[in-house]
């Protein structure tokens, strides 16, 4: 795999309000290899996604998207790079004032390259893919949590990005909702999309990813496959995989 087809973080440090979130963090997301970043709540998993997207900026280190360094670039340059990436936020982050259809077609409307009819066709296709086509004219407030997530996935797919990020996609969902999201992610991977997910939900992670990174105390504690992760004898990795009484109230 060439460097031009990957997202890479090198020695990234991020501090906010005097609190260190990431220290010398490295990450490689190669196209076609789906990765999950694991870690306890508040360990800085979402921060990694926001750093790659340029929504926040690191104090030091470098971030590359398809070989191009994007660290601390102006917002206008980030906008170009972001076209390669879409994200499904934890709460969906659907725009309240727009219908489901307008949410899904948002990026296409903004770009203004396609006609209204073409955008509508794409929107319907994406909503059909995630199984919520009947909700086309509803507003986000009228949807359930699971439906919101699926609409957010449809929105992420609309502009045909190379990479799709998932921020805790199964949090707050019932088992059927989790199953739906996992199968959708697998279908996306079959369709050739590269996914980067952050979660603390191990079954979802193992069902959707080939490689795993574990953050512990702002540093990368582990990187490898599922087999390597399970075989890893590091105490912090073992503690994460099989919490014991020692983990209580940590």
């Amino acid at each position, binding site marked *: 795999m060439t460097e031009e087809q990957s997202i890479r973080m090198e020695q990234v440090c991020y501090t906010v309000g005097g609190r260190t979130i990431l220290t010398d963090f490295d990450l490689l997301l190669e196209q076609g290899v789906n990765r999950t970043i694991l870690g306890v709540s508040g360990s800085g998993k979402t921060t990694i996604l926001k750093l790659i997207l340029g929504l926040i900026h690191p104090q030091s280190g470098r971030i590359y998207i398809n070989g191009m360094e994007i660290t601390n670039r102006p917002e206008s340059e980030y906008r170009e790079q972001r076209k390669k990436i879409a994200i499904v936020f934890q709460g969906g*982050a659907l725009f309240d004032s727009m219908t489901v259809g307008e949410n899904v077609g948002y990026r296409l409307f903004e770009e*203004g390259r396609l006609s209204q009819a073409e955008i509508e066709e794409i929107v319907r296709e994406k909503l059909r893919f995630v199984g919520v086509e009947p909700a086309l004219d509803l507003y986000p407030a009228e949807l359930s949590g699971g439906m919101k997530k699926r609409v957010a996935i449809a929105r992420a797919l609309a502009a045909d990005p190379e990479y799709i990020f998932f921020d805790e996609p199964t949090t707050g969902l019932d088992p059927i909702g989790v199953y739906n999201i996992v199968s959708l992610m697998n279908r996306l991977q079959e369709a050739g999309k590269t996914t980067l997910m952050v979660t603390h939900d191990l079954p979802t992670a193992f069902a959707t990813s080939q490689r795993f990174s574990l953050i512990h105390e702002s540093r990368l504690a582990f990187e490898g496959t599922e087999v390597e992760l399970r075989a890893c004898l590091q105490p912090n990795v073992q503690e994460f995989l099989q919490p014991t009484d020692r983990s209580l109230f940590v």
Partner: protein
Amino acid sequence: MTRQPRQWKRCSSVIRLSAIDQQMLGFFARFQAFFFLAWQSFIRIFSKPYYYRDFAIQFDKLGFSSLFICVLTGLFTGMVMALQALIQLKPFAATSYVGGMVAVTMIKELGPVLAALMVAGRVGSAITAELGTMVVTEQVDAMRVEGTDIIQRLVTPRLKAMLVALPLLTIVTDAISMLGGYLIASGYGISPIMYLSTFTQFMVPLDYLEGVTKPLVFAFLITMIACQTGLNTGGGAEGVGAAAKRAVVLSSVLVLMCDFFIAKIFVVFR
């Protein structure tokens, strides 16, 4: 033992200085961010995409929805102005000047300030709360990821709507206050012609210009403070509430302060 208190004293003054330093740095950073946003929003008024639909929605939200409150404010302020003026003018047999007095006070000062304060309370807080909620629910981040220029999409349509709506609201407030003043003046035997004729005696064209310039400046201030506060909201629902309160207080105080400085500038050019 004897040196310890001195060390503590020195240490506490260093901590105090460092806290002041941090506060000052924070203040100047916010100040800089405000002017950056204001400039970026202003230049985007003239650049594409124009988001006409958003402008229309915002104009409706900011303008028409504030009309009733401005009418009420204008009516009662005009009435009370005329009442107080008539009481003061009656001993000098100068009640015929009441129209001019109401006009000067309302068009130059109270009309723009009261309309701006009403709009700051009603609309400024709404803008901050709306943008703040979008920030805490990650909708603003989602828009940025989708390739949207946040200033162009969220700030500029509000600014344009406010720059059109507030001067119009001020004109309505002024007109209604004149009417309210006449309602009271008519009870003292002042004819409509007498009431209107004193306008020209008291007002010069520059006064009308002052009456329109002020709402334009206030509109810019209210919108920029509301947007800046809203886009920097943090801390969930509580943070949104605190941000809305902060925006209203700050914009109200700045409206009153700017009113003085604009008046001073017009006095110089008189």
